[in-house]
Structure formats: C-alpha cells, structure tokens
C-alpha cells in the first residue's frame, strides 16, 4: 500500500517516543504486508487463491481483521463487504478501465460476506465459492491504526495520534491539555484555501472518511470512483464524502465505506443506532451530521 503514515506522541523522553514510534511503524508495516490485496505473498492472497478449495491458516491479526469485517457487514446491512474483491479487480483507476455489464453480472454473485467461514479454534479462513476474493482495503488501515495505538500504549505512551492516510486514531490529550484537532477534507476543494471543510476536537476516538475524490476517473460525464457497492458492483452514488467518528479505527474505517454506499438517510440512522458520530455530504453537496456532533464540529465553509 502506498500510504503516508504519521505518528505523533507525547512522551517523557525522546528515547521513549522514538522506541514506541518505531515499534508502531513495524506493526503497521506487518499488517499491511499480511493484508495486501495485490501482493502475491500476502495472507489475504493465499486465502483468495484457495477459495472454494480449502481453508487457510492465518495469523491472529488477519483472523481478527476478517472477524471484525464480518461483524460490520452485519451492522451495515451488507453494504460494507470485504468479499468485494472480484469487483475491485474489474476497475483500474489509472487506466480508466471499467467493467462491461456481462462481466459485472457474472462477478456479483461472488460477493457475499456470508460465504466467508472463520474457524477461530484452528485460526483458519475459508471462502465457500471458487473465484471469491477478500479485499480488506476498506478496513485494514483503520485496524492497523488500532494495533499501532495498542503498541504505543504498551510502551507507556499516554497521548498520541496515529494517521494512516486519512484513517486517524487519537488518544490522550495534547501537552497544552486540549484534545486533538482533526480536520475533514473538503470533497470539492479548489485549492489550499478551501482544503478543510470542518474541524473537531476529540480524543480516545477514531475518525475515517470515505470520499468519491480519492481514486476516480470521469468517463462520459460519470464519475467512477473506488467506493464500490456490493449490491450493484458500481461506484456508490448517493454521497460525496462520509466521515465517521467511532471508538476504534476499524469501525470508523469500515462504517465510513458502508454508509457511503447506503446513502445519507439510512446511513444517519445506522450511525445513531450504533452511537457513532458522522458527517455526510450527499451528492448535492448538502451536509448532514449526527445530532451528537452538533456544537462539537466547526465548519470552515460550505463544501
């Protein structure tokens, strides 16, 4: 994964900080290596290769990651689904490649998280149908931020922030006694001036955003972006960006994807039921926030 990782910590000494950060980086690198959808050597690839054939023994991290992903699928009515893999491969955002109707029709029946079988006792994962593929891209960064945070805390760090691309996990307070300040990227920024849509102060929480502006191309006036719906196999069209604030990184990461796909109305309802915060910009640019966030979020300008 080509992602920028930033770790900031508050520590009693530079030595403590450096040791903790180095360890956290190693953990993130390790998870990214194991969970890499595109690498032929990753654990995810060996699960995918054995689809419909046999179960595969995996590391505790991958077992936990997949288990968490399946639980989020249940909570988002299947909108977040890591078995989106075969659909992911039909798109190439560099070469502007998109699938024909026939290819989509054949691939979609492979997408169903209920066909992932986890055996916690044996630490194995099995995909029931040949051709099925797990693409953990919608949860692995949030999960890695959680694990990195565990590592930092284990080193005695009481305050810090881990940002893997736009997936952020913050804990403790800054040296000035204030919570961390997190900005939300404006989905339609025209320059550096209107880069940030809103800011909020938080701690002991994770924030992630799914947007239609990260990886996309425009063909015949239609924006093809990377948030693909497991129901249609096409880019989800009801939102421009969805930011989710949850207690853990894996939740914020996967829910932001799931709610982007479900759209603003259903999304807000699910966020409220789950007790998470959310900022949803719909496809008309209208901003909606969960009631709990009112007064806690400061908007810089209209997105």
């Amino acid at each position, binding site marked *: 994964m080509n992602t920028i990782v*930033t770790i*900031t910590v508050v520590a009693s000494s530079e030595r403590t900080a450096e040791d903790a950060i180095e360890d956290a980086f190693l953990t993130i690198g390790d998870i990214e290596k194991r969970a890499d959808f595109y690498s032929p050597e990753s654990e995810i690839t060996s699960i995918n290769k054995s689809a419909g054939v046999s179960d595969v023994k995996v590391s505790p991290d991958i077992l936990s990651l997949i288990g968490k992903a399946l639980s989020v699928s249940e909570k988002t009515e299947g909108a977040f689904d890591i078995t989106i893999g075969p659909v992911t491969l039909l798109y190439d955002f560099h070469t502007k490649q998109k699938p024909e109707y026939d290819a989509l029709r054949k691939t979609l029946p492979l997408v169903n998280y209920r066909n992932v079988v986890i055996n916690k006792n044996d630490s194995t994962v099995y995909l029931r149908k040949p051709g099925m593929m797990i693409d953990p891209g919608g949860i692995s960064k949030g999960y890695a931020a959680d694990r990195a945070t565990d590592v930092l805390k284990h080193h005695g760090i009481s305050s810090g*922030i881990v*940002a893997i*691309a*736009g*997936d*952020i996990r*913050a804990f403790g307070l*800054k*040296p*000035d*006694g*204030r919570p*961390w*300040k*997190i*900005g*939300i*990227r404006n989905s339609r920024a025209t320059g550096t001036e209107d880069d*940030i849509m809103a*800011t909020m102060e938080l701690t002991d929480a994770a*924030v*992630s*955003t799914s*947007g239609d502006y*990260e990886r996309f191309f425009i063909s015949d006036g239609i924006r093809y972006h990377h948030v693909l719906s497991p129901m249609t196999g096409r880019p989800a069209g009801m939102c421009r960006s969805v*930011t989710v604030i949850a207690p853990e990184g894996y939740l914020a990461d996967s829910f932001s994807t799931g709610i982007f796909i479900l759209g603003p109305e259903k999304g807000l309802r699910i966020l409220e039921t789950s007790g998470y915060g959310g900022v949803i910009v719909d496809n008309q640019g209208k901003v909606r926030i969960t009631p709990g966030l009112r007064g806690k979020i400061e908007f810089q300008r209209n997105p």
Partner: protein
Amino acid sequence: MNFREILKFTTVADRVLFSILILLSLLGLIFVRSLIPGGNSVEIDVDGNLEYVLPLDEEKTVPVQGPQGTTLVEIRNHRVRVVESPCQNKLCIQQGWVEHGVIACLPNKVLITVGKNGKRSSEPDAVTE
C-alpha cells in the same frame, strides 16, 4: 463614616466572616486561572519559517537567531516581550509586554505570535480524507 468607624460596629464574628469571604474570592481567582486550559501558545517565526512553538504558561527566555543577530524573547505571567534585539529602531522592545497579538521585528525577520488566535492554532493535528 470612615473605615475605622465601620470597624467599631463589627463584632469578632463579622470580622472573621469578612476575612473568610475575602480569602474565598481570592482563592476563586487563583482556581479559575488554573482551571482554564493553558491552550495559548507562543509561535516564533524567523524569516517566514516556524522555529518555536512554546506554551504561554511556562516562564522562559528564548534567544532567537535572526539574520542580524539574537532577539531575546521573554515569556512570563502569560505575556511575552522582546528584551534584546540587534535591530536599529528597537520598536519590538518598545512594544513591551503583549498578552495577545503579534510582535514583529522586521529588520531581524522575527515574528512572534501570542495567543491561541495565532495563525497556526486553527490548523488541525491530522486530516481525515
């Protein structure tokens, strides 16, 4: 009726009560001060580059190296001033103590921003995208 005459009409209990009230209000002042988060910071730029970010509630004297020499910046009692400067006009020193705002020494290219409304304080620690 002056203060001494008023004092004659008071009992010992009154005086004790007054003393307690005065003490409480003074303590209140101190408590309020310590309860307000020390969110304010001092940011020092040299020639357009941020060189220092310092808490406003920590007493400190910082020698800041500019192109003309050392500008000595003092932080005390939530205020900031320039003590010494290599510049000719010494306008920065004449500005005295600043609680909130900007002290600029143009000849030595030193810019001191005091208070949380400083230009960078609104920048987030991380951005989700």
